[in-house]
């Protein structure tokens, strides 16, 4: 019987849409520390499907296709946000800022977490956090 989720994946996976998916892959790797696992480029330059790794999790993304997904650049309001745990929030923040991520708020301690908020080049909203619980 197949294993679910498959090895190297978690059960719930964000699947994001970008107008310029190749640029998004480059950005997510440079700024947020993702690793590209693979991509399926389409003949017109769009990305049919791509998977990026983040520690032991994966993120899926694709280019915008009518009826399948839309870039936040064309949405009238915020659709969702992605909340990620990292080991060193301040180091992650510095890397993201230096790589040109839009930083909505710098690292701060709140609700038992140290976290900062960033927005990627097409407007997807990200929170990077680390627990302050010493246990």
């Amino acid at each position, binding site marked *: 019987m197949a294993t679910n989720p498959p090895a190297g994946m978690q059960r719930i996976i964000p699947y994001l849409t970008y107008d310029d998916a190749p640029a998004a892959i480059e950005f997510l790797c440079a700024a947020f520390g993702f690793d590209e696992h693979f991509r399926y480029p389409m003949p017109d330059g769009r990305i049919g499907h791509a998977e990026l790794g983040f520690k032991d999790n994966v993120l899926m993304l694709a280019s915008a296709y009518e009826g399948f997904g839309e870039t936040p650049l064309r949405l*009238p309001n915020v659709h969702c946000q992605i909340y990620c745990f990292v080991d060193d929030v301040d180091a992650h923040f510095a890397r993201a800022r230096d790589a040109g991520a*839009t930083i909505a*708020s710098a690292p701060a301690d709140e609700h038992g977490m140290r976290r900062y*908020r960033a927005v990627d080049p097409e407007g997807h909203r990200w929170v990077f956090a680390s627990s302050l619980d010493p246990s």
Partner: protein
Amino acid sequence: MTASPADSARVTAFVAVEPAAAFAIFTEEIDLWWRRGPRFRAADSAMRLEPGAGGRLVETGGGKATELGRVRVWEPGARLVLEWRGRDLGAGESTEVEVRFEAAAGGTRVVIEHRGWDAIGLAHPVRGGLDGSAFTDMIGLWWADIVTGLRAHAARRR
């Protein structure tokens, strides 16, 4: 100047043009990149920023004009400071928005600081019931969404 977390929201962003161009795009092409939608402005409105100290940032649409802010400092290629009322603050209420354009590898780091919120009472509708850094976080996210429009517009212009 860095204010307290409850007084000020600070957003940093990157645009892939040099500072003089970033300033020109920010100011002269504001109608092209300022995002549309219920959180930002009316879908059919026009935005204009009048150049120079004393210039107004105005949104027009639906037969009315709303002054969102007024220029306090106009330093092309470097810095813009606006007295800011936006859509939500009334006469006698204002905050301040500073936008700095700093040279960075491959373009410009745009730093937006929106300060002066300590003077806006906790019961003010603009806060939506939020105070402290929860409120300024919301303001920071709003500016981050706004400046995402600038970033995308500048990238298309390259």
